[in-house]
Structure formats: C-alpha cells, structure tokens
C-alpha cells in the first residue's frame, strides 16, 4: 500500500529514489504529458463555461485523480516511490530542507530566476522545460520574492472549519470550503502557494516544477482532513448542475472516474499520520 509521507521526514535514500524516478519520467517523455494536460485544463476551465480541473467543485477530485495517475507513473519506474507532501504551514522558508540541493534545489538566481542547484537545474542537463509559455527552457523560481508569506496553520484551520463543501455558482466566486482552499476567495491557500514559489509554478504550466506534486499532495491531504472533521458533509453539487462535474458525473480527461469514486483516498493510498 502506498504511504504518502511528509517530505520533511524522508530519508536521504527516499529523496534519491523520488528524484531519480522524476528524472526517468522526464527522460522518457511521460512527465511532459502531465504538464500538457494540466495546462490544457487550466486554460479551458472558465467560470461561466465548462470547468473541471480548476475553479469548480471538481478541483479536489480532479487533482486527486491526476496525482494518483502521476504516482502510478512514478511507481512504474520504481515501485518503492510514493508522492511526498509539503506542509507549507510548517516548512515555510526558502531554507527548508525541501529546497536543498539533494532534493528539489533552491530558489532562482536574481538575474533570470534560473534554479542553479540540484537535479532540476538546467545546468544538470536532465530537466529541460519543454512545455512552456515563453522562450525560457530552464526551471525558474523566486521563493517568497513577492514579500508574501505562506499560509499559516491558523489560516488553514479556519478554512477546514467551513462545513459546506462548495456552493453555487460553483466557480471562483463561490463561498464554501473548496473555493477558500483553492484560494480565489478569502485567505487564499492553494493559489498563494503557487505565487510564493514563483517561476513556472505561478503559470499554467506549473507541473514543470516538481514541487507541484508535493504542494497538491498537501492540498489533497487537507481535503482528507476536512472530511474527517465534517463527517456529515460531502461533495456538492449532487446532480443536475450544468457546466460542472456533479457527484456521479465522469471527469475529463479520464471519462471513467467520478468525484464519488475519489472521495475515499484510502482505497489508493494512506498518509503517514491520520488525517
């Protein structure tokens, strides 16, 4: 059974296995298909049209399925690998071990944002940024450069306290847990972390940065924590809502999985500590 661990608790061997599996997915071309898929959804999900991956109730089950698929791709390279999660309420500094050269590498240099240490630096030769929105083919970051702070645990708890999963109009204007977690409204959790990392993580091709998966694994874990706190609440809308994925509607691009199928993460993996 796959156990997703806090990245801060990984052993050096676990970090190496994870990084090596990422590099192999990149080499084989599989990695970039995930970047392409994400960008296609982020550009086509609109507040008043069809919306599946973002700014909609299915933001959480869509990314849960997307991460499972990615994790399975990693495990096809090395079955001992699981996705770690980044609890940015605790590891909230550019000096965290997450950003060390033996793991994801650090922030970008000031001149051009280029990450210049670790396995994902362009100078290491194994991480070309090919699915891109501008001419730059190297991984970039600007950790915390905007002066913004990562969300705090108190801020996370205030969002986890919201008992309603999602509300009409089921988009970036919604009240409720999903949109406050996604960050279009209120304190801003998920969106703010993308902006804090900067570089490709702030763009539509954000999965170009491997931290994308660790960020979303933590968002996924927060959904599990929300479920544990609100056993009487569930995914909404239940049925009949146009343009959005209802509880038992299938989700693109898989077309064989529904939000209902994604509600229980323990069918696919568990976390290192109880949600």
């Amino acid at each position: 059974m796959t156990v997703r661990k806090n990245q801060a608790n990984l052993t050096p061997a676990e970090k190496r296995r994870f990084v090596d599996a990422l590099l192999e997915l990149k080499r084989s071309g599989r990695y970039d298909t995930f970047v392409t898929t994400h960008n296609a959804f982020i550009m086509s999900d609109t507040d008043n049209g069809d919306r599946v991956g973002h700014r909609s109730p299915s933001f959480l089950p869509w990314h849960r399925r997307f991460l499972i698929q990615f994790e399975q791709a990693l495990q096809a390279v090395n079955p001992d690998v699981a996705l770690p999660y980044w609890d940015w309420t605790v590891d909230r500094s550019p000096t965290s071990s997450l950003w060390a050269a033996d793991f994801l590498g650090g922030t970008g240099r000031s001149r051009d944002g280029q990450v210049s240490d670790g396995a994902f630096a362009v100078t290491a030769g194994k991480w070309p940024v090919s699915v891109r929105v501008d001419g730059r083919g190297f991984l970039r970051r600007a950790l915390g450069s905007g002066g913004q702070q990562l969300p705090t645990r108190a801020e996370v708890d205030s969002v986890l306290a919201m008992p309603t999963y999602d509300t009409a109009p089921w988009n970036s204007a919604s009240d409720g847990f999903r949109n406050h977690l996604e960050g279009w409204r209120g304190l801003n959790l998920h969106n703010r972390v993308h902006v804090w990392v900067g570089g490709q993580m702030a763009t539509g091709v954000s999965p170009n940065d491997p931290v994308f998966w660790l960020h979303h694994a933590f968002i996924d874990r927060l959904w599990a924590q929300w479920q544990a706190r609100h056993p009487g609440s569930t995914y909404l809308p239940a049925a009949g809502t146009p343009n959005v994925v209802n509880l038992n509607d299938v989700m693109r691009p898989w077309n064989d999985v529904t939000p209902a199928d994604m509600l229980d993460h323990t069918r696919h993996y568990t976390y290192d500590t109880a949600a």
Partner: protein
Amino acid sequence: MSQLSRRRALGASATALAGLALTGFARTAEPSGPPAAGHGNGEAHSPEGSGHTPAQPKPFDESFKGRRIQGAPSHHGGHHGAGYSVRIDGEELHVMQNADGTWISVINHYETFTSPRAVARAAVVELQGSQLEPLL
C-alpha cells in the same frame, strides 16, 4: 455597391492591421456597440453564472518596460472565448476574466489583477525580456 462594400471592408481591415495587426482586433475599427458574445462561453446566459457580465475593459496600446502591450475586445472571443485579447510584442497572451471581474493570464495564473492592462504589465515583469510562445 459591391465595390463600395469591398473598399469599406478593405478599409476596415487596413485600419485593423495598422492598429493592432490581427483580425481579432478588427472590432476596434467598428462603431461601438454591444459586446460580442464569446462563443461557447455562455456569459450572462448561464443559470449558474454570477448573474452579471462585467463591463468590457477599454482597449490599450502602450510601451511598458520596453515591451509593446496591447489589449482590445476580440470579435471572435479570443482564445477559449475570453472576449478580450492581450498581446505582448505582437504575441497573444492568454488571459481570462474571473466571475468577480478580475483578470489572470497564463503567465500569472494564480494571482488576480484588476484589468487586462495590469495582467499585461505583470506578465512583462515576469517574462524578464523573453518572448511568449505562440498559443497552442
């Protein structure tokens, strides 16, 4: 008659070309009227929509940090029905309007801005001189 229509059409095209160099901006050469409905967008028609269509921002064309940034309502709805097109040095920047009227772009996709011009300026800062890739 047909000659006149053709010249008028050519004139409109020439104006658009001289101004913004793409057909999507041709609307700026026409008299102001109700904004074109973005295809497949369903703005203002969707029962699940926010209940109002935010006002269409005005065109702009300026130099910002050495880059030419332009924005205008687009007749064909722009990419994915945005209804407004933004360009940086002639290359289209994918932008999207949120239900609350704020804007994002593919360069700053998780941060909202009050106008397409603000989105374009933020993208210029983020690009640090590099060129946008053509939209897929």
